[in-house]
């Protein structure tokens, strides 16, 4: 008897197949499910009394895709690629059999249907979806480096046309049921109550059991013919946009385009074989492995607060106290109010505090204008933010976050003023980006409740929060800080205290490397292009302009002051010194590494070539890319060794979500595995000899290389 699919046949001879994959919060495709669905299908086909079938789910949602956690390692473990291909093809044949068996199948989509879940419905002859605002439909496989390998690349374009299908699949877009209906993915919408009856009615009334693509004379909507102008233009443009958007780092999008191009010009059975081969190529490649590990499995586990200490009762912030209404404070207030919290936003003057609230107001105006939010909801959210200059208003706050100027004395002042009024049980968090937490905690009466919550700018868009433990931070403070991060739907990583923690410290390594390259005579355009082509969101010179060159320089001076004789200036420090001297302080000031002409795109400042003459001999672009990524990966390893980081997963997630370390690599540690640890060490040795001792390999890493260890074993 099937364990994941149950079958009931009504008096009209209509079978209802209800999917319920036990022990999973959502239905996912597992080996058991494949088998169970196959068995039910056989029953539907062989039982003459059955005239058709409805497929639906017993859970709140219809079905998500493959169970990446269990299924992929199993498939990846198969030794021979052709074995995997055969396995994928076999699993697709169940669906092919379903759509060609002569009896009509209807998908009754009661909620979200993603990936393999949606693909299953595409193999049905008719799709009815419940019009729920919280339900989404889509083929998001590309987000983890895969393609829709359950026939999605073949059925979707045959159903809705090449262009619309390519857009959905290469971007992994999610659609609301209504949008899916508009595109023709779903045939009909229904309420929850009428769903099954409508599905049955279609079987009784119409029940066309032949897919459009199995009918004689079928043509892909809009046409697909490599000899026709439309097809030529569509693919020329799509190919180029994919190359642009991926910088050739991600093989999945172009594989999707190829599946459509190659597979939809020929009959679907051949198309499905083509899809299976591209799918297996991705599945067995490194990029998908990296992305699934870091962006799916490990991120999910971080989101579920893997790092939360046991034995602390689950907590919820109802009122947040936000100290400082500058850029960070405004953003933190916004995301907290959005998560339903009341926010007390405090600054030294009414004007400044009000300005902080205005940030949310402007944000909400846009949301309402774009119809992403009702004006009532927006008004309610804005109401949750209360501005003040009076510390007494913080009294009821369970959590305080401080985001005032990066100056120890100012920070100490607000800490003490706050602790004078808040409850004994309240947690105090500092959003410092570089100052060590234990040092700041010295100003606190209760350092056990003192913790670091390092947000990234702009807060409403950046998904990471770096949680920093001071020397004395308690388990309870950590647990409650994590609960808060979960409440605002961000991903936490927990790190130990250190100058710059993990993210600021390692992020700055690439900036320093870029500056060092300038001093060596590497062309600035080459540096910036290499970084972008490696997969960083912006070049290291542009990013310094964004964050302000002055700031970087000040941190340098502060560190020099703090560390005294022990301070060794970074190899590229003179670059920021020179720019500061020339008052080229960054984008905010209209000039930095770049010029910012009005009404035109920024351009690298030609004067850079006078400061740092470009040499005739330029390095290979691959070396420039590798230097930026290698120095960050190496320093991340030092963080691990120094216990700033507690696990490679945190480093991987933090590097991608924190500063955009190229996601294809899976993050800083996955990058070392991707390069190969022995080769990585060899490369560092070469760099340390040629470029400087910052590339010196720690003994423990060399030992790992000698033992051929990797950070991950999947």
């Amino acid at each position, binding site marked *: 008897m099937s364990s994941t699919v149950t079958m009931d046949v009504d008096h009209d001879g209509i079978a209802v197949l209800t999917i319920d994959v036990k022990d999973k919060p959502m239905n996912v495709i597992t080996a058991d499910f494949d088998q169970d669905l196959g068995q039910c299908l056989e029953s539907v086909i062989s039982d003459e009394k059955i005239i058709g079938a409805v497929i639906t789910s017993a859970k709140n949602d219809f079905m998500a895709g493959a169970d990446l956690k269990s299924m992929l390692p199993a498939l990846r473990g198969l030794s021979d690629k052709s074995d995997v291909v055969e396995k994928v093809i076999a699993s697709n044949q169940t669906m092919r059999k379903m759509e060609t068996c002569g009896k009509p199948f209807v998908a009754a989509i009661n909620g979200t249907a993603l990936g393999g879940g949606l693909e299953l419905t595409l193999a049905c002859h008719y799709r009815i979806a419940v019009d729920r605002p919280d339900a989404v439909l889509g083929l998001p496989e590309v987000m983890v480096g895969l393609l829709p390998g359950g026939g999605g690349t073949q059925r979707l374009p045959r159903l809705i046309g090449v262009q619309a299908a390519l857009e959905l699949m290469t971007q992994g877009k999610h659609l609301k049921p209504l949008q899916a209906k508009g595109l023709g993915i779903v045939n009909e919408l229904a309420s929850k109550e009428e769903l099954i009856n409508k599905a049955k009615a279609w079987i009784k009334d119409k029940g066309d059991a032949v897919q459009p693509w199995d009918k004689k004379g079928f043509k892909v909507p809009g046409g697909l013919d490599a000899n026709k102008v439309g097809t030529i233009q569509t693919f020329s443009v799509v190919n*180029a946009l994919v190359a*642009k958007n991926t910088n050739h780092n991600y093989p999945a999008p172009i594989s999707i385009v*190829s599946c459509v191009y190659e597979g939809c010009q020929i009959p679907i059975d051949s198309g499905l074989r083509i899809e299976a081969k591209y799918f297996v190529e991705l599945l067995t490649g490194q990029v998908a492995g990296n992305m699934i590990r870091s962006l799916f499995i490990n991120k999910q586990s971080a989101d579920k607060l893997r790092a939360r200490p046991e034995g602390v009762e689950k907590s919820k912030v109802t009122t947040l106290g936000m100290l400082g209404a500058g850029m960070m404070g405004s953003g933190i207030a916004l995301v907290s109010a959005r998560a339903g919290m009341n926010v007390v936003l405090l600054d030294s003057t009414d004007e400044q505090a009000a300005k902080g609230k205005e940030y949310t107001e402007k944000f909400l105006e846009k949301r309402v204008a774009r119809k992403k939010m009702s004006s009532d909801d927006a008004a309610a959210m804005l109401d949750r933010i209360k501005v003040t200059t009076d510390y007494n208003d913080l009294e009821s706050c369970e959590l305080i976050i401080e985001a005032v100027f990066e100056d120890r004395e100012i920070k100490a002042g607000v800490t003490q003023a706050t602790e004078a009024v808040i409850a004994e049980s309240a947690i105090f968090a500092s959003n410092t980006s570089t100052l060590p937490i234990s040092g700041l905690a010295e100003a606190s009466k209760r350092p056990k409740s003192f913790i670091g919550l390092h947000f990234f700018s702009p807060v409403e868009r950046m998904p990471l929060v770096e949680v920093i433990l001071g020397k004395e931070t308690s388990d309870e403070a950590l647990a409650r800080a994590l609960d808060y991060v979960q409440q605002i739907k961000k991903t936490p990583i927990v790190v130990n205290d250190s100058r710059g923690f993990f993210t600021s410290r390692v992020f700055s390594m690439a900036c320093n490397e870029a500056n060092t390259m300038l001093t060596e005579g590497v062309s600035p355009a080459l540096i910036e*292009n290499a970084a972008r082509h490696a997969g960083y969101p912006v070049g290291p010179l542009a990013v310094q302009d964004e964050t302000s060159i002055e700031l970087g320089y000040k941190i340098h001076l502060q560190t020099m002051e703090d560390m005294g004789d022990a301070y060794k200036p970074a190899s590229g420090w003179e670059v920021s010194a020179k720019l500061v001297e020339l008052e080229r302080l960054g984008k905010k000031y209209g000039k930095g590494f770049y010029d910012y002409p009005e009404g035109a795109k920024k351009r690298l400042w030609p004067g850079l070539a006078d400061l740092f003459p470009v040499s005739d001999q330029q390095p290979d672009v691959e070396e420039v890319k590798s230097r930026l990524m290698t120095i960050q990966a190496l320093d991340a390893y030092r963080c691990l060794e120094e216990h700033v980081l507690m696990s490679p997963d945190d480093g991987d997630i933090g590097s991608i979500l924190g500063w955009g370390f190229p996601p294809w690599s899976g993050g800083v540690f996955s990058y070392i595995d991707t390069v190969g640890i022995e080769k990585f060490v060899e490369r560092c040795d070469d760099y340390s000899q040629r470029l400087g001792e910052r590339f010196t390999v720690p003994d423990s890493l060399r030992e790992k290389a000698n033992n051929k260890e990797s950070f991950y074993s999947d």
Partner: protein
Amino acid sequence: MTEAFIYDHVRTPRGRGKPDGSLHEVTPVELITQVLAALRDRNELDTSRVDDIVMGVVHTQGEQGANPARIGAINAGYDLSAPGKQLNRFCASGLEAVNSASAQVMSGMSDLCIGGGLESMSRIPMSTVGGAMAVDPQVAYGSYFVPQGISADLIASKEGFSREDVDSYSVESQARASNARDNGYFDHSIMPVKDQLGETLLDHDECIRTGTTVDDLAKLKPSFVDMGANFGFDSIAIQRYPEVERIEHVHHAGNSSVIVDGAASVLVGTKEVGQELGLKPKAKIVGFASTGSEPTIMLTGPAPSARKVLKRCGMSKDDIDLFELNEAFAAVVLKYMKEMDIAHEQINVNGGAIAMGHPLGATGAMVLGTLIDELERRDLNTGLVNLCIGGGMGTSTIVERV
């Protein structure tokens, strides 16, 4: 090795390659038919002696496909023993066809061949042409494909050619072409294209813009800005050439080759067959070569192909009196002059495709004829013809007057 001699060359004028062009009403096969007929008639050629007819055609679909060399020969009333074949080396097809015809002669396997080419760009527009290069996702993505205009702008960006540089070059091309036409330098090679009734449809290159100035050209908008920015091609070009900060779009309709219709053919044979048929050789094929080059920048193949043929022939560029490099885009020629260290006075002395047009499959054969006529007019000896080619190639031929 047998020597191959050029006995004659003839071409159509180049008609604007649009529906309002004078040759639009003429089918592609009719263009080549008239050229083959002219070559026969003005040489009183016994076409039963023709061992092969090789024609370059780039866009070989529809009425321009299925071997117009053979079909044109039948249509022109050639002896049925004269076979024909088409070949495609993109923009160098016309020259490649002459090289291929010459190779047959030089190998001793043929005595007399015709090489040439045709292209009716008004009837088979470039936009209708597929092929794997841009369309097949694996190919386009894997080879960092960008359209030629982007490649040309990439050359300009990489080499630092300004808009004024490319425009000035183009103004000079117009001036030279006007001068050459007005003084009858092309009269020997051009044959008028006639209609069904024998009336002349066109007897001169109809796209030359006499008196074009740099100021005129400065008014034109660059052609590939949108394509580069919105379709991602600039990014792809920079992915391949990361030393380039940004693509400066300097090319436009006035400094790129004009889209035209036309056909040409060149008669090549042994010394003996010439004597036998009473033909007077004009020039000798010294050598030829093709090379592949990086396909994204695409149009930098000419210089390597020139070096290759020079080396093979034991010559240096100083042995060459005049150069012709097809003016696909102004930057292509500027880059070639810079790389080969050739003065503008020595190259494209009668203008080129920027003024007169580039009927893809035919151009190579046309330019070869122009060069031979000019060597004769100036009483010089040696010339080198060169074309840049899609997919990243270059083809060169050296000729010497006899």
